[in-house]
């Protein structure tokens, strides 16, 4: 066997020049990637600030009209009007009396099958409006009786034997004389909506309710809003003129102005370097005013 010597061809890698050029170009690209990623991070942070503001504003213009729309100003559902606050009787439930009330104890029974609401009746917060027909031959003496709900009792029976729930009411119980089975009951709670400034320097739509004999602390429900003029109410009567009489209101104007928590920082964009601001204005026609279309 003849030994064969194979000459190994030298394997040339990159030359030094090529390596240097590649490293330089690679460095340039890595730098560009860094800049783009950094800009993107800034952009997305700013964009999320903007979306927070938009989301907060839309929450305000969903929530307040939903609370205000069903009110009856002439019956006193608007309690107090302010430039940046409104105090209302917010409707929470509807029920129907299904047995003759007991005037002496202020006890009524409501039919379980006809009780509606977004939560159960809470005696610590809710009051009840009971419809008193009076003389069934005329509407002139019809009115809503306003009661404190003392307690919500155990399950009981309606006059027709169906399942019902007993309510103990305090107030004008003597007027329950002509309240019969079939009379509607509306439950409501006293709520105030106003601009709420937290200790972080931000403002929100704040809500507080009256329960157990005192007002709860104001708690934020939507925002962030601008501290000055973040929430403005305007109240109009049937002629379209501004009014300060709660019973004359047929339309409520709500303006919310949002302000982002931090400055937005998108180069080349107007208002960059400052917090993002936006505003919305909505109007609500009170649907339960007598004669409301």
């Amino acid at each position: 066997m003849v030994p064969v010597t194979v000459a190994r061809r030298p394997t040339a890698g990159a030359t030094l020049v090529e390596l240097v050029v590649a490293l330089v170009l690679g460095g340039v690209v890595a730098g560009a990637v860094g800049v783009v990623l950094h800009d993107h991070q800034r952009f997305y942070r700013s964009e999320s600030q903007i979306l927070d503001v938009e989301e907060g504003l839309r929450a305000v213009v969903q929530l307040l009209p939903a609370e205000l729309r069903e009110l009856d100003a002439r019956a006193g559902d608007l309690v107090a009007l302010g430039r940046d606050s409104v105090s209302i009787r917010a409707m929470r439930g509807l029920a129907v009396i299904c047995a003759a009330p007991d005037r002496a104890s202020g006890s009524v029974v409501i039919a379980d099958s006809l009780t509606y609401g977004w939560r159960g009746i809470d005696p610590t917060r809710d009051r009840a409006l009971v419809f008193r027909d009076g003389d069934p031959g005329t509407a002139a003496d019809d009115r809503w009786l306003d009661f404190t709900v003392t307690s919500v009792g155990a399950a009981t029976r309606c006059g027709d034997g169906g399942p019902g729930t007993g309510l103990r009411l305090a107030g004008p119980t003597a007027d329950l004389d002509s309240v019969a089975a079939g009379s509607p009951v509306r439950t409501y709670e006293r709520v105030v909506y106003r601009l709420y400034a937290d200790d972080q320097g931000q403002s929100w739509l704040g809500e507080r309710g009256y329960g157990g004999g005192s007002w709860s602390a104001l708690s934020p429900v939507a925002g962030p809003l601008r501290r000055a003029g973040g929430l403005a109410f305007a109240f109009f009567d049937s002629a379209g003129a501004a009014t300060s009489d709660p019973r004359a209101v047929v339309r409520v104007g709500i303006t919310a102005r949002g302000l982002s928590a931090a400055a937005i920082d998108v180069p080349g964009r107007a208002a960059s370097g400052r917090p993002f601001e936006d505003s919305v204005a909505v109007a609500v026609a009170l649907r339960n005013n007598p004669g409301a279309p």
Partner: protein
Amino acid sequence: MSGSRGFLLVEVVVALLVVTVGLLALAGSAASIARLTGQGRRRAGAGIAAAARLETLRAAGCQALAGGRDSSGFYRLTWTVTTQGTGRVIDLAVEYPDGRLDRRDRFEAIAWCP
């Protein structure tokens, strides 16, 4: 390419071009996100402006319903009212700048006259 001669300068340049195209696409996505969120904001704003106008018309009462025009910010609103039996059909158009063109959204609502 003969044997294992490492990479050529041309190959490096091609690779860089590919990376650059990717980066440009990424940068472009930010621009389109900004454009789309702006568009969403304007369109939602048009809906809110229309709802505010319809509520105002409703509050004025059915008998007072009439066509008209108004503006709210950069939203221009025009509406007409036509009678259909005991109902009134309110046809409301909102025009606003949307990119290079103006956009026109239409809303229809019905009010019953008791």
